[in-house]
């Protein structure tokens, strides 16, 4: 510790300046330089021996291993290696989601093969952060970046006030709608409120056959985005204390509304997302809308080529007319495991591809990021695609991102809970046994049992 001089900081100042050297970014450039000055000042204190060395070594060769199933990360590697000739970056796909978490957990337990940076869905970050398996990025000055992101995205990586990762992609919940199918049903404007959505659902159903406004096969993320948008906060996490309650007004309203749609057969419960049936439904227009994350823009065109030109993107319908609230459906962060070997270099790359000069190359490759610099970027906002009828869909998604309501928390064991939800909701979706509220109560009880068994204190 402290065996390197402060020379390393001069480049970080360069990066920070370059990063904001675009027009309209003067103000923040000034802020960034100010931040670097703070960092330099901090360095002059002589870097305490208890904290990690935050300076990037320039003299010894370093190899960084990055675990990511986000294919855009590798786009940023060449630029970074050019800036840091002594650092080699290996981006590895160690599996998606649960596969990666299992591999990471095994590596951490084994004490070897731990990557320097790993990817986490937002809901899985607490699973690793709370037991102390991730590096608190405060020591690298990550807190200064908070205001550069959509507030809710920063909230996702902040646990007990400490940033444990940097947001790397974002999924604002949005409504993708098939304009021509809605028009056929007599719905001329996309439903702006949930009441309108319900009315539209009835009209679409009246088209007969397999026409439904949307499908839902026990997708907890759809239900949660309705809760989230309406102010429901069913999970409260404070350290290892977790509270689960689906009875708060925002959550119960979402549950009651969705129950109504299920009861009146307005949602196709026979089609599961990502299945062949789903593709066909989207393709032939029997599924009129999708309540899903903004990342759907990247996969919808290849799933529904026959519906080219018919789909548009709209904000999630609101609970009250005129409101502009939003929710998330998906998104992920990148974090540095506590057992990583080269933390300073890892943070330098982490910041480079999620915040710095490497970000643009990822955006060009299709990443949707919650960085305000991008969400306010005219070029990005004016992107069009004939598949979406030349709509400026990024504008809609950027607004949806900024409108995401804050304060949502996931329980640390959400990865498990998600599978459990599929089990407990099966009788309701398979054969209409019970109600959504009863399903959530059973789910809550199982989660409490599991959570307590795993060493949390769950109520």
């Amino acid at each position, binding site marked *: 510790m402290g065996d390197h001089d402060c020379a390393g900081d001069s480049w970080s100042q360069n990066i920070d300046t370059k990063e904001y050297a675009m027009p309209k970014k003067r103000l923040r450039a000034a802020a960034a330089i100010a931040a670097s000055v703070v960092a330099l000042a901090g360095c002059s204190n002589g870097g305490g021996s208890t904290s990690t060395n935050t300076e990037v070594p320039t003299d010894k060769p370093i190899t960084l291993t990055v675990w990511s199933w986000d294919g855009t990360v590798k786009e940023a590697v060449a630029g970074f290696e050019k800036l840091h000739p002594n650092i080699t970056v290996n981006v590895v796909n160690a599996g998606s989601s649960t596969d990666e978490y299992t591999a990471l957990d095994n590596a951490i337990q084994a004490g070897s093969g731990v990557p320097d940076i790993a990817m986490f869905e937002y809901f899985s970050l607490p699973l690793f952060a*709370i037991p102390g398996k991730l590096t608190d990025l405060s020591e690298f000055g990550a807190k200064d970046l908070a205001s550069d992101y959509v507030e809710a995205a920063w909230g996702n990586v902040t646990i007990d006030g400490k940033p444990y990762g940097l947001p790397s992609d974002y999924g604002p919940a949005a409504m993708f709608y098939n304009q021509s199918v809605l028009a056929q049903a007599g719905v001329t404007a996309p439903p702006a409120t949930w009441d309108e959505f319900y009315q539209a659902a009835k009209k679409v159903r009246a088209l007969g056959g397999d026409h439904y406004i949307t499908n839902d096969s026990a997708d907890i993320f759809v239900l949660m985005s309705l809760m989230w948008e309406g102010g429901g906060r069913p999970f409260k996490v404070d350290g290892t204390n977790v509270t689960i309650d689906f009875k708060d007004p925002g959550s119960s309203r979402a549950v009651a509304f969705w129950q109504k749609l299920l009861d009146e057969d307005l949602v196709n419960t026979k089609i*599961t997302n990502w299945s062949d*049936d789903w593709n066909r439904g989207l393709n032939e227009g029997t599924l009129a809308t999708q309540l899903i994350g903004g990342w759907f823009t990247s996969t919808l065109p290849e799933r529904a080529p026959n519906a080219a030109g018919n789909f548009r993107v709209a904000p999630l319908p609101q609970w009250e007319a005129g409101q502009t609230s939003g929710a998330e459906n998906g998104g992920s962060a990148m974090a540095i495991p506590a057992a990583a070997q080269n933390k300073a270099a890892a943070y330098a790359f982490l910041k480079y591809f999620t915040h710095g000069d490497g970000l643009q190359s990822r955006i060009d490759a299709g990443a949707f990021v919650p960085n305000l610099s991008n969400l306010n970027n005219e070029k990005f906002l004016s992107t069009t695609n004939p598949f979406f009828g030349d709509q400026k869909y990024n504008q809609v998604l950027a607004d949806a991102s900024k409108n995401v309501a804050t304060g949502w928390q996931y329980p640390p*064991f959400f990865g498990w809970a998600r*599978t459990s939800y599929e089990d407990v909701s099966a009788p309701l979706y*398979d*054969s209409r046994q019970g109600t959504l509220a009863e399903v959530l109560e059973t789910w809550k009880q199982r989660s409490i049992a599991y959570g307590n068994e795993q060493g949390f204190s769950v109520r």
Partner: protein
Amino acid sequence: MSRQLLTQDTSVSDVVADHQTLRKPKRRNIGLAFIAPFSVLFLFVFIVPIGYSAYISLFQNKLIGGKVFIWFDNYIKLFQDSQFYDGVIRVVLFTAIQVPIMLFSAIALALAIDSLRLHGSRFFRIIVFLPYAIPAIVSTLMWGFMLGIRYGLIGSLNKAAGTDFNPFAPETTMVSIGVMVTWGFTGYNMLIFYAALRAVPRELYEAAAIDGASEFQIVRHIKLPALRSSLIVTIIFSIIGTFQLFNEPNILTTLVSNSGITSYYTPNMYAYSLAFTGSQQGYAAALALVMAVFTIAIAYAVQIKGMKNAFNK
């Protein structure tokens, strides 16, 4: 013939005895050296994994608090776990129904081919065996598309007949999986039976024919008794196979919705989801070991029963 063998045996053992009295210690070492490669492999490939599973089954890996030694708590919990019983009962029922159907069909097909009255029996044999060569993943996808009600074959039949039959409703999914498994493994079992039938000396049939036995009598008194030992083998293989049901239901969950397949649908699926989504590796190991003991016990019981009947005959 047996007399010859007997005399040979004695002479060999005499020689061995002579040598043993002369150079006992060295011979023993050579013997150890000969079995060493096998022993090492056996130890690492069979004993160590089972031992390690038994070891981790005594621990709980908590998300908060790490690894805790909990004696036999995992086993106690397992025997009170309704999800575990749900899966076990399902595979036991499945085995009890699917295995007899599959083996009966396999015997019937083997007898048909062996009857020598079939045209193109070689072609037929390959066609029936072919599904076994198709990976379970591919065949599940294929059957999934075929039995799917929305766009599959059944969907078209439903449309044509105006019916509402769903092969992947919670009540029928297991039947559909049974169809897939039967389709995949009938040919394999048929081949085992066919090989056993081919081993019956043709003279026996000629003798029976000369004695005036009908074709049915030949089947009943010569061919079926000849299948007894291979029947025991196929029953054991089938029980082991169906108790480990995993691929088919696991793939179906992503293919069709509302099929009633839960994360604990079969004991194997339950072990998988415990280990990989619940990070309850110790509990999963306990489950795996209990299922292994259960499977071995049933396979052993079948073997004992089969052998006893064979000797009684």
